[in-house]
């Protein structure tokens, strides 16, 4: 197991005051919180930052962590010293439902038992906890439906009251027509119930992997479709990819860049299905040969009166 340097994660000195730690956490949280961040690795980074603050932001846990840190020598495989935590009570902040499983193995080994003694509300005391996880699928999977085997790390309380993580495999059917961000509820696949009570449910949030060509907006799909200047001007029938295979699309004569052509019902399946939009991008070939240059020159002569910047002249005055 790797020793985690929580001070480095938050970018503060070991001697940092509680205020400095809080300030560093707040700043990183604003940058990496998955609900507000656009950074691609936001979720992973925020987990590290949140874990570091969970320890350093709590005076008791910080004291315990510092104590372990003093006995640890860099480069070693980390093992918590036996009985190291006997002097600490950890009466500080509680863990939220299912929260402990979000943390690293290192954190679990030090503070895992805290989650076990958590006070439960009387009215859901026996019913198993509901769990939440995320599954990433391809856009194509949403068109056709898919089966995915996902690995869940489930916190389980062992005989000493420590929370340990157990890996569990689950086959999941992704229904055709699922939308980005929607949730599947798998009945009875959450935490086990106590005393014969029913287990909790598992909620899976569906995310789409970013597609190189298609953009998704609810049930609708957008594609930037490059066309040549003459296809746009004269009209053409072109072959267009959709997540469900290729289709023929008629580009009407006299189309301009940015024109949206709708492929009705070619969005995500459903009742009603979404639409697909091809957004035209008029492109011109490079003038690399003498023949290409003379073709452009002929074009310039034929359109001597054409001013592509006409719209700018009325606004720049």
């Amino acid at each position, binding site marked *: 197991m790797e020793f985690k340097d929580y001070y480095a994660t938050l970018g503060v000195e070991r001697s940092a005051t509680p205020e400095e730690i809080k300030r560093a956490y*707040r700043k990183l*949280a*604003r940058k990496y*919180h998955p*609900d*507000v961040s656009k950074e691609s690795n936001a979720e992973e980074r*925020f987990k590290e930052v*949140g874990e570091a603050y969970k320890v350093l932001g709590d005076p008791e846990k910080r004291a315990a962590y510092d104590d372990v840190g003093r006995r640890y020598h860099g480069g070693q495989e980390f093992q918590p010293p036996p009985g190291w935590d006997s002097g600490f009570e950890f009466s500080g902040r509680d863990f*939220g*439902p*299912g929260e402990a499983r979000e943390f690293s193995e290192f954190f679990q080994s030090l503070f895992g038992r805290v989650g076990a003694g958590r006070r439960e*509300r009387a*009215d*859901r005391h026996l*019913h198993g906890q*509901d769990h*939440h996880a995320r599954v990433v699928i391809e856009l194509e999977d949403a068109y056709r439906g898919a089966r995915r*085997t996902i690995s869940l790390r489930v916190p389980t309380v062992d005989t000493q009251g420590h929370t340990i993580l157990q890996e569990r*495999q*689950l*086959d*999941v*059917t992704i*229904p055709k027509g*699922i*939308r980005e*961000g*929607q*949730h*599947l*509820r*798998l*009945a*009875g*696949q959450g935490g086990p119930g106590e005393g014969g009570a029913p287990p*909790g*449910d598992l*909620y899976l*949030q569906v995310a789409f992997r970013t597609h190189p060509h298609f*953009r998704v*907006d609810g049930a609708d799909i*957008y594609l*930037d479709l490059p066309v040549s200047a003459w296809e746009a001007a004269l009209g053409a029938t072109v072959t267009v990819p959709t997540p469900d295979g290729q289709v023929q699309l008629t580009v009407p004569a006299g189309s301009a860049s*940015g024109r949206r052509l709708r492929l009705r019902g070619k969005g995500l399946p459903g009742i009603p299905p979404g639409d697909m*939009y091809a*957004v035209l*991008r008029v492109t011109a070939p490079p003038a690399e040969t003498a023949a290409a240059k003379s073709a452009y020159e002929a074009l310039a002569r034929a359109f001597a009166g054409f001013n592509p910047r006409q719209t700018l002249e009325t606004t720049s005055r």
Partner: protein
Amino acid sequence: MSQTPFSATYVVVEDEVTFSLTQLCQASGAEAEQVIVLVQEGVLTPRGSGPQDWQFQGPSLPRTRQALRLASDFEIGLPGAALVMDLLDEIKALRARLRRGGIG
């Protein structure tokens, strides 16, 4: 056959599920008092005249969880989280418009 447990029964929460107050608390991990604040703040809009017969639509679950995350991770309370969610909704709508125009 592998030993992998197979779960054939799923429902799409957003389309097919409604929650009572108790069920929403169980699924989201929220306390009833927190859900009541989120209703007062307009983050959740259940049908029904009072907490006893409130019915929440499926999207209430991710919204409740998001509000709890924001409130606790930024230490801004549920009213603060409600404000952040309003602004995030607005940004999302604006980004969708950009995307439709092929700019975003």
